[in-house]
Structure formats: structure tokens, C-alpha cells
């Protein structure tokens, strides 16, 4: 016999305060999407900047019967370390999808089997507001620039111009 058990406790947790590993998050996302429902979560990291930023809230929906298209942002499980990754589809290589972070200039495209994709990003929220840039008709052009390694260069240029403009106004 084991000693007396402690009392069973059901705790109410704030999802945003829960520190889940990337692998755990992928597991939960997979379970929810398998029910045909969207999954909403706070993303960490800058690899998709400027379109997705650290602490943005993403809504990922199941792929359904339509395979991911070039330009779409997808959530997938990395073949390297089983972590959850959110990157843009920039092309295809045979049956595999080429995916890349918008902010990873010069990084080699990763080719992943489509079976690794959990869902597509349908919505980006930042500070309580929906961000549309990067998910609309411009996404194919973004994918092209990203694949050519030009997106991060353009973004850096735009940031420099913005800073210069701000300094001039001040």
C-alpha cells in the first residue's frame, strides 16, 4: 500500500502564463487540430519578423483537403528536433515543402514532408489587433523575396529609413 494520497486538485490556469515546451505545444496543437478546430496560441521568436513578432498570438487552422500553397505560413514539427516551427512555404521540391523564416536571410530552405505540417496560420494578432500584412495576396511575393534572401535585406532597409525619418522629425 502506498501512503495516503494528497487531495485531488483541479487548478484553473491562465494559458498565457503557462510555460510549455515547444514539443508540448505541438502535441496540444496536433490534438486540437485533429478535432477539426482552430488552435490559438502565443508564439515566441523572431524568425518570421516583420510579419510575425515575438509574443504575437496566432490562430492555426487544420489544412483540410487543400495542401499548403506557396506564400502561406504553416505550423509544422521540425524533422531535426521535433520542435514546433512556424515558417512560410516558399516552394516545393518534389513532394516536400520548402519552408523558411521570413527573417532568416541566407538561411538554407528546409525541405519538410507535407505530413509534418499541422496547420496553416489563419490569423495574426498583435496587441489585441488583427495584423493582415503577410497573410493576404502579397504572400506569394513575400515568399519569393524570402527565398531569394531579399526580404530581410529589404526589411532592414525599411527599418533604417524609418529610423532616419524619426530622427529627422525629432
Amino acid at each position, binding site marked *: *500500500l*502506498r*501512503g*495516503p*494520497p*494528497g*487531495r*485531488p*486538485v*483541479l*487548478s*484553473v*490556469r*491562465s*494559458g*498565457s502564463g*503557462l510555460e*510549455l*515546451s515547444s514539443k*508540448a*505545444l505541438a*502535441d*496540444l*496543437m496536433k*490534438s*486540437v487540430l485533429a*478535432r477539426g*478546430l*482552430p*488552435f*490559438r*496560441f*502565443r508564439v515566441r521568436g523572431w524568425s518570421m519578423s516583420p510579419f510575425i513578432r515575438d509574443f504575437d*498570438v496566432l*490562430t492555426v487552422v487544420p489544412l483540410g483537403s487543400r495542401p499548403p500553397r506557396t506564400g502561406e505560413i504553416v505550423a509544422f514539427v521540425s524533422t531535426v528536433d521535433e520542435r514546433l516551427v512556424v515558417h512560410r512555404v516558399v516552394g516545393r521540391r518534389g513532394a516536400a515543402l520548402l519552408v523558411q523564416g521570413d527573417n532568416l536571410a541566407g538561411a538554407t530552405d528546409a525541405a519538410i514532408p507535407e505530413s509534418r505540417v499541422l496547420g496553416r496560420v489563419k490569423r495574426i494578432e498583435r496587441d489585441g489587433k488583427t495584423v493582415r500584412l503577410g497573410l493576404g495576396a502579397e504572400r506569394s511575393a513575400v515568399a519569393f523575396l524570402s527565398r531569394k534572401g531579399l526580404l530581410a535585406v529589404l526589411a532592414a532597409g525599411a527599418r533604417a529609413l524609418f529610423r532616419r525619418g524619426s530622427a529627422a522629425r525629432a
Partner: protein
Amino acid sequence: MQQPAVKLDRVYIPSEDIVAREIEGELIIVPLAAGVGDMEDELYSLNDTGQEIWRRLDGRADLQAVVTALCKEYEADPDLIIQDVVGLMEELLKRRIVVERPAG
């Protein structure tokens, strides 16, 4: 609406409106009732003892069988175990995390 009383001769099962996963030693329960698995909303977790009870909600064992199994495993007053199991089930029912298995 009044909540149905927990009865020991009934079988309780996890609701279709949740996803529960054991993650890093903790059972995380994500409600789906709003039609979305929302990690920005409220989630639930169960401690070790709660998980011991949860694991036994297999769709076959009624609550009395769950209590009996726990009494065999733990050195504790059976009345206290019943009280704790019923208390937890009341909480889970109230939040629609479990439902009573339909008869038949």
C-alpha cells in the same frame, strides 16, 4: 441550471469538448466548448492525485470501482477517498470536463 449529483454507480468519461494531454508530468486540459483550442484562455490542470482518478475514467469503471481501486492502492480512510473522489468529480462535471456516460 442545477448540476446533477455525482453518483457512485455511474460511469463518468472525459467530455468530447476538451483535449487532455499529460505534459511534463502535468495533465493539461484545454476546453474546446468555444469551438477553438485557445491557449490564451483558461486551461485546467490536475495534480498527481487528480491524475490517478482521471486515468481510471476509462468508460468502463463506475465511480465505485474507481474508489475501490484507490482504496486498494492507498493506505487511507475509505470515507476520505470517497469524499475526495466525489468532490473532484463535482468540479469536473461543473466545468463540463467530464460527462456521465449515457446508459446502454
